[in-house]
């Protein structure tokens, strides 16, 4: 096909050369980083090893689902932290969905006051940093609760400075006890996450409902259905098709935001990891474990939401 084409003008070769150069650059960079890392780590006597996970942690956790104390090994502490994270994330997902859906639906209410309040809530929450909101809930609301003696008592639950007591709360030697006890730290983190994510989920829900064509509302009204019925039976199922993918992002955000538990004194995975790292200096291993865990949680949520997405789509066909 004519004279050979020089490599710098060759349509097929040039892209591969560009990639080759980029790849080489990346390789050189990675090699430099890794060499430095290995060299500095071996200088500090800290080459990659996992044996330190078996040594006693030397610190206590504020709360733990599994029995834990300072003599237990690091890996148990990290597992406990992970369980704490999963606990607050699971509860947070449920809570924020409920709050978000309620507020999202309320922004279509016929009651103007309710509508405006819903929009105000979203506008207030979305433009304030989450960390500040968590500090607010922990330091200003939950730490100001009355002490055990003057606890707020409602049918079935007791709320005071030492925690929330559900399911048969009773006093025992001046201290409250119950079958289900939730610490103030958990409550503060939970409330903060739910209120924050709830605002974003409200926007997703609102966008989803708004995406249903006006004709659907009109046809339903012509059939004689009332607005709440229309919403429940006709609009919401169609809106779900748009809402579920948006929820995926918000859920992953919530899972990542739970890492701010440090501000509330809650012993989640990140705060345990931070303490471990500060004590052992094992930066690489701890960071790998933490990042890996959060990535796994994200993948889990995405997988669940993809399943839900398929379910929601199939329902329509």
């Amino acid at each position, binding site marked *: *096909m*004519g004279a050979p*084409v*020089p490599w710098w*003008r*060759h*349509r*097929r*070769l*040039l892209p591969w050369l560009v990639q080759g150069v980029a790849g080489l650059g990346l390789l050189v960079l990675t090699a430099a980083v890794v060499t430095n890392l290995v060299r500095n780590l071996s200088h500090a006597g800290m080459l990659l090893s996992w044996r330190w996970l078996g040594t006693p942690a030397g610190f206590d956790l504020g709360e733990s689902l599994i029995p834990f104390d300072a003599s237990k090994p690091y890996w148990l502490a990290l597992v406990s932290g992970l369980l704490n994270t999963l606990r607050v994330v699971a509860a947070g997902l449920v809570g924020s969905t409920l709050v978000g859906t309620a507020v999202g639906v309320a922004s279509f209410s016929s009651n103007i006051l309710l509508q405006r309040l819903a929009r105000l809530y979203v506008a207030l929450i979305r433009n304030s940093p989450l960390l500040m909101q968590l500090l607010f809930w922990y330091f200003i609301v939950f730490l100001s609760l009355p002490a055990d003696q003057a606890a707020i008592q409602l049918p079935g639950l007791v709320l005071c400075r030492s925690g929330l007591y559900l399911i048969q709360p009773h006093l025992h030697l001046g201290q409250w006890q119950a079958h289900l006890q939730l610490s103030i730290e958990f409550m503060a983190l939970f409330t903060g996450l739910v209120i924050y994510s709830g605002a974003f989920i409200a926007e997703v829900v609102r966008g989803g409902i708004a995406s249903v064509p006006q004709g659907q509302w009109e046809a339903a009204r012509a059939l004689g259905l009332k607005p709440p019925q229309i919403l429940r039976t006709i609009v919401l199922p169609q809106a779900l098709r748009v809402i579920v993918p948006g929820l995926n992002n918000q859920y992953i955000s919530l899972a990542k935001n739970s890492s701010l538990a440090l501000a509330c004194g809650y012993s989640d995975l990140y705060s345990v990891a931070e303490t471990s790292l500060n004590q052992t200096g094992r930066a690489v291993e701890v960071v790998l474990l933490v990042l890996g865990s959060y990535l796994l949680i994200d993948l889990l949520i995405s997988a669940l939401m993809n399943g839900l997405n398929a379910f929601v789509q199939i329902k329509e066909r």
Partner: protein
Amino acid sequence: MTLAERPALISVRDVHKWYANGHHVLRGVDLDVAQAEVVVIMGPSGSGKSTLLRTFNGLEEIQQGRIVIDGIELSDDLRQIDAVRREVGMVFQQFNLFPHLTVLDNLVLAPVLVRGRHKDAVRQQALELLERVGIHEQAHKFPGQLSGGQQQRVAIARSLCMEPRILLFDEPTSALDPEMVQEVLQVMQGLARGGMTMVVVTHELRFARQVADRVVLMADGMVVEVAPPEQFFTSPQHPRSQQFLSQIS
């Protein structure tokens, strides 16, 4: 010099193209287009006519065969491809005007960037071209403010601003409302009379009858019949041509 004796501006020899999924879209196409000739390519959808057109300026690659445009062979050489694109203009079915630039800026962009010409000279030429296609007053509007027919005429002017030797038209009127088709065809007719070498893929029979020097029928990736329009439309030789004409007439 008769049409047959003029040197070929476009020379296509035994061109084959396969898509990534294995579909053999061009199966051994041979074609010559002489200077100042107007060739109309017709055929059923999927026949490969648009694909063939797009190989002429390197928008589609070929796996086998040879394409020579104005003495420059289309190969893997980027410099040759750029040289070909400077000489070959293209008008698309969807106009593809740049929506964020005014009509005038649409015309001025390429000559300044590609040919390195001076902005004011290009601007002057652009205004003259716009007058030629009848869009002079809209020079400072944005494409979104124009009708489909006006946009396509701007697209033609934009290609002309690069002073090409060949103009390719890929179904230029298929996306237009019927009342705007004529204004675009008239511009194309004017260009043909002015001696522009044109290769047009279209379904417009009257245009082919009036303006084309030759009509090429393509089907299933092959050239089925090549003939002057009077012969093609009154007495087509190949059974496939007869089938095609009976379907669209």
